[in-house]
């Protein structure tokens, strides 16, 4: 008599699996970005909506086409392309010509992610890699800022947005200055609460510190983000700029440093990208400290007003080294191992 009417399945242990899977993590990141995204659209109007749609859609499309060309099952269902596109859009200036945004999105996905092997294998953060490429290719366009909360933001679109592909856009006369630009070039500081609430100008999604932190908290609560990274970055930046500010009050205050520019978005959503950050505990700390130091140094002493992107990319570049050199002590080795 057969007790079983089917073929037995054989598999390796464990036969239980925790519930989270990679696509879900990615999906929750998108969810966590929703408040920031909505605020961006509220602050910059149609321009933000357009740029975010273009980057997200192009990112997904690029990945899909790549998979088709390689006769592979499409990987867009893992949501990571959507995150990359969305995050790229959030770091761009609102009035950037859309063709540039699309080009950046293609570069993010194709050059920085897929050429390196796709999800999980990219060395550099795709969104920031794409932004770095855009910034090097079109430095003027990407440092031309558009003011937030224009009255007609829901009815008109900046003329530069619809520049013909591959041509220079004509910019509307009204140009906004960002807090960091004002600091660097005009030595003018900006009100801290304004920056916290997102009332300033800047990249599409970087302006509202509060909502970004909210999204971060959501991910931390779900254990989908390593809270140590942003916290250590913030601490490093605050300490360094605090010291400098103590000796030279003309330099930005720690609060200004934390709330201005891409610091929040970068530390909370981009430095925390699991793929391009180290995995070991001590590696993560070192990585965050390096990012903190580099962003402070660039902002205070470098030529550019903002350095978050470069700092994160530098962190990405040294991650493999940190992973290798800052391992955990293995159980039963080292000083505790010999103990009796």
């Amino acid at each position: 008599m057969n007790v079983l009417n089917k073929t037995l399945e054989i598999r390796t242990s464990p036969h239980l699996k925790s519930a989270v899977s990679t696509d879900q993590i990615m999906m929750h990141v998108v969810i966590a970005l929703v408040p920031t995204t909505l605020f961006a659209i509220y602050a910059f109007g149609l321009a933000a909506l357009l740029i975010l749609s273009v980057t997200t859609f192009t990112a997904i499309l690029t990945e899909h086409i790549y998979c088709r060309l390689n006769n592979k099952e499409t990987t867009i269902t893992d949501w990571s392309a959507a995150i990359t596109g969305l995050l790229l859009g959030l770091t761009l200036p609102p009035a950037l010509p859309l063709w540039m945004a699309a080009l950046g999105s293609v570069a993010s996905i194709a050059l920085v992610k897929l050429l390196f092997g796709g999800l999980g294998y990219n060395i550099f953060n795709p969104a920031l890699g794409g932004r770095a490429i855009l910034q090097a290719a079109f430095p003027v366009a990407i440092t031309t800022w558009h003011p937030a909360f224009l009255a007609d933001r829901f009815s008109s679109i900046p003329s530069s947005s619809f520049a013909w592909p591959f041509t220079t856009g004509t910019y509307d006369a009204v140009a906004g200055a960002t807090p960091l630009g004002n600091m660097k070039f005009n030595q003018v500081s900006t009100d801290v609460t304004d920056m916290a609430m997102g009332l300033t100008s800047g990249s599409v999604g970087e302006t509202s510190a509060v909502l970004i932190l909210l999204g971060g908290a959501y991910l931390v609560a779900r254990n989908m983000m390593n809270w140590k990274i942003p916290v250590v970055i913030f601490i490093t930046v605050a300490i360094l700029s605090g010291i400098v500010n103590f000796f030279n009050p003309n330099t930005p205050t720690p609060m200004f440093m934390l709330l201005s520019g891409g610091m929040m978005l970068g530390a909370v959503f981009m430095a925390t990208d699991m793929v391009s950050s180290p995995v070991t505990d001590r590696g993560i700390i070192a990585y965050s400290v390096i990012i903190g130091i580099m962003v402070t140094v660039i902002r205070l002493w470098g030529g550019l007003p903002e350095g978050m992107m470069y700092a994160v990319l530098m962190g990405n570049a040294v991650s493999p080294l940190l992973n290798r050199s800052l391992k955990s002590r293995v159980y039963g080795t080292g000083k505790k191992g010999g103990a009796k």
Partner: protein
Amino acid sequence: MNQAELDKLVEAPNSWHMVRALAGIGLMCALLIVTTYELTFETIKQNKAEVLERAIFKVVPGAQSKTTFIVKDGQVEKLQGESNSGLKYYAGYDDSGKLIGVALEAAGQGFQDIVRVLYGFSPDKQAIVGMEVLESKETPGLGDKIEKDETFLKNFEALDVSLNESGDNLKNEIIFVKNGTKANPWELDGITGATISSKAIAAILQASASQNMPFLNQNIENFKQQ
């Protein structure tokens, strides 16, 4: 392969051959180089002089001829032959041999690396009347607007560097202002998108002018003889 066979493969180096070959080839090379050097020397000298002259005539508009001066022991004297050390002053004269300006070099940190410029000073106008970038690694298309941007170069039609009462420094510092906000002749109208580079030019000129203008004005007579 056994040891004996292996040893056979190693030829004993012949010292004489080595010296002979190296020295012989060294000799040949020396001849080759020197011949080329001699043959091209005049052309290159001429080329270089032309380039320099072009630059000087550009920053001292209207100049037709030039004389090079150097400062030796606090004294201005004409440069005889060549010299590689010390700041040179290139005096420019018009047809009639009248001094219309002095050109000199200045350098400082730009966005990417050191920027070297040549600028012309007009003693009559007490102003900088021309500026040419000699060497820069500024971003092409962006920082290199300091060489090409016409509005920016307009700054140097007459950038005020007149001296203060006591004559030991500029009356007004050369300062950088945002594009389109130039109100005074000593202000440098910046380039949007190349703020850093254009600011660097202002800083370079300010540093050089505040150091050299008092000296030039005091010794202007010395430059007048061609």
